[in-house]
């Protein structure tokens, strides 16, 4: 289980997280949602140990990741997979080599076995036939599926998805949604999805945290959140143009602006 306690993190003067606490349950899909700039990706980087909090703790299976040595952190990361928004595939390697890369680096397996593992992973995301393509030849959706295959290459215990649905066409979207669900179920993963795509995320998440202005604005199952009496959560979950987050950027009244000259 991942446990975040009293986490505070700032960038310069701006407080991204202000004393938040949350739990990620094992073998479940937990979604972290919120508008752009709410710090969702930052939270993944904090969980992955790429950023250090100002205060508070993040523990994974009882280990405070920000107190680990570099070697211990790297050992822990072998149990984590991460899908970046851009895919983050290594541009000078083919699809096959991208997936084989972490296996080659972390194991002493013979090439024949590595080939079998890579083909199995690629088959799981439906791209076995694309193994010889270079990342530049892939569509956005395909790149994310390859990145997904790479994220599960070392059979991790948990996987973090950073905005997996952003900018996808409906078919790719459907494929990604069902893949995330299928992988989580088949591999008994603990999944964290960071997203602002409400419909897709709510359709597969077991539990959702909604972040806003450094705080947790709401939490619960997708059903609980859809019925939440919080105006802010209602506005976010139903995509209303106006509400606690105003449509208009703060300014003087329109009439006084018009009559100013």
């Amino acid at each position: 289980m991942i446990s975040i306690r009293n986490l505070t993190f700032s960038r310069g003067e701006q407080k991204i997280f202000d004393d938040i606490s949350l739990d990620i349950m094992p073998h479940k899909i937990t979604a972290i949602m919120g508008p752009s700039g709410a710090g969702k990706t930052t939270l993944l980087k904090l969980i992955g140990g790429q950023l250090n909090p100002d205060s508070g703790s993040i523990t994974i299976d009882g280990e405070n990741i920000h107190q680990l040595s570099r070697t211990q952190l790297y050992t822990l990361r072998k149990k984590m997979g991460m899908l970046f928004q851009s895919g983050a595939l290594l541009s000078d390697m083919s699809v096959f080599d991208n997936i084989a890369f972490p296996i080659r680096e972390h194991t002493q397996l013979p090439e024949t076995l590595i080939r079998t593992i890579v083909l199995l992973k690629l088959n799981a995301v439906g791209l076995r036939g694309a193994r010889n393509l270079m990342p530049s030849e892939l569509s956005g959706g395909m790149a994310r599926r390859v990145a997904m295959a790479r994220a599960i290459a070392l059979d991790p215990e948990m996987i973090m998805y950073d905005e997996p649905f952003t900018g996808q066409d409906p078919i790719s979207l459907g494929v990604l949604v069902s893949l995330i669900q299928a992988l989580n179920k088949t591999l008994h993963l603990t999944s964290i999805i960071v997203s602002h795509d409400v419909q897709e995320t709510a359709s597969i998440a077991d539990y959702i945290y909604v972040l806003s202005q450094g705080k947790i604005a709401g939490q619960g199952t997708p059903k609980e959140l859809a019925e939440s009496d919080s105006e802010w959560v209602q506005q976010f979950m139903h995509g209303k143009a106006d509400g606690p987050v105003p449509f208009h950027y703060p300014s003087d009244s329109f009439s006084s602006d018009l009559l100013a000259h």
Partner: protein
Amino acid sequence: MNYLQTYLQAYLQKIGHVTLKSLAKLGRASLFFYSIITALPYVLMRPQLLIKQMFSVGVLSFWLIIISGLFVGMVIGLQGVYTLSTYGAEASLGIMVAASLVRELGPVVSALLFAGRAGSALTAEIGLMKTTEQLSGMEMMAIDPIKYIIAPRFFAGFLSLPILALLFSSCGILGGHLTGVELLQVDLGSYWTQMQQTIDFYDDIVNGIIKSIIFAWVVSWIALFEGYDALPTSAGVSRATTRTVVNSAFAILFFDFLLTAIMFGSA
């Protein structure tokens, strides 16, 4: 009076801010260099990474260095004959061409070309890898990008530039021969014999190699650090690439002066 005080305060604040920012960057660059050095055993265990990068930064700069060296040598040959003939000393052309190339122009010009060709490419490559989250992706795969990406490129640059500088000087000497001996009829025997008699292996050639080793260290360090430290945006990578070329040029010329003063200052 108040205005002056405010102005002075703002000015001092600005100086303080720039100084602190520069010191912080120098600190980051030093830690970055330290982590590259500690990655040397990893690179030695994976020579294929080093060879691949030596091809990229060294072999692909080959023709640029050969052609530039040849033309620089040809120009020194022409200028040398015109200047030396005033004193009837055309026979010393070989010494002039070789000494200027081996001591100065070989290491300096090849380092400047290397910074423009390979240094800028390294910065852009690393900067783009950062922008497209490839470096973060590696970290999350528990693979240290300093070991896998940065260190092989650093040592490839470090090894390639001295070889390129030697090639540059050799081609320059041939270029000097083409214009001086073949075109302007300087005596062939004098050109090569005087050169052999005067150019000292340790004082000239080894010192030239030491210079290019220092330049290789400086250029590779600047290029890789600027890429690694770049803002992960297209404008950030563009600015970092420019900084690599400009800062490398300044550093090369500064170290050239320093090394020349140390090596030849007492001569």
